[in-house]
């Protein structure tokens, strides 16, 4: 009895909140973007000196597959972050593809993405010796 209360509390609140949000305002989506595991991937990467790039990349890919065709877009930076992970994993082709996706989805990133794409091409041209 006593143990069940703290569990019930928040879920009741959330139900109330969700109901109120849907009925109260005409616009149901509460966030602009479908975030998936991107915040966690960022936290792992920044706090744990890179973390496990392969695992983070596969989690992000899973999320992208799940949310394909959904109304809300991937958040700013998600594709760019995937590109970083793929660079660390040595997969330049996928890295380039995700840099281009970031640029297409968010033209605000164009200057930076172009710089990275230029560097990627340069290192790809110089690499094997």
């Amino acid at each position, binding site marked *: 009895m006593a143990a069940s209360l703290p569990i019930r509390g928040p879920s009741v609140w959330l139900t109330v909140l969700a109901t109120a949000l849907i009925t109260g*305002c005409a616009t149901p989506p509460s*966030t602009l973007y479908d975030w998936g595991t*991107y*915040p966690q991937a*960022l936290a792992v990467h920044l*706090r744990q000196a890179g973390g496990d790039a392969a695992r983070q990349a596969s989690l992000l890919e899973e999320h992208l597959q799940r949310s394909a065709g959904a109304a809300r877009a991937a958040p700013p930076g998600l594709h760019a972050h995937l590109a970083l992970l793929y660079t660390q994993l040595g997969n330049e082709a996928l890295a380039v593809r995700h840099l281009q996706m970031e640029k297409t989805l968010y033209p605000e990133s164009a200057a930076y993405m172009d710089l990275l794409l230029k560097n990627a091409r340069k290192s790809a041209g110089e690499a094997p010796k």
Partner: protein
Amino acid sequence: MSICIRRVSLALITVVAGLLGGCASVEAPSADPWPALREARPASVLVMPPVNNTPDVEAPASLMAQAVYPLSEAGYYVMPVALVNETLRLNGVQTPQDAQQISVQRLRQVFGADAALYMDIRSYGSVYRVISSDSVVTVDARLVDLRDGRTLWTGSASASSAEQRGQQQGGLIGALLQAVIEQVASNFSDRNHQVAGIAARRLLGGFGARGLLPGPRALPAEPKR
């Protein structure tokens, strides 16, 4: 049991009141505290590595990661922070202090962002003055236009783990915070990081009287009819 019912009904009232107020009062405040920000209308923000004034070495990484969500949801394009960090590192920029020395012209040239967010972490982690060991995160921030170096906005926010215990955390904000905590807690046991997330949302996510203005990608304030 009766306490529980009272809490829920109290929450209901505050939620309903909040929604009624929330939907109606989205007009701009009478006095504009940030005319430069309104005029500059930055679309993209570069989150700089935060300067750490605390003994906890985790603080800058934690806040840099936590700033992305509220800034993006506020309608700004946030330059991918881990990638930015990597670019800085590869160019010999080792510390946040080094990063802050880079001129706005150079930042604009490399990253192409309209504005940069500079954060100073005043406190992060346990506060030893208090008998109970509460986690407190306090951040000061300023948004600088990378096109002309003007300061567009300044803000400050704080969050404490002690708030979770306070039962006056009712209404919309209480429920949202609860949701945030639960969402993050499943992936991180680190309380400081969670509290940093709440501080970041307060700093960047709320369009209060002195809060950031919504960015160009924000949903229109009034639903279209």
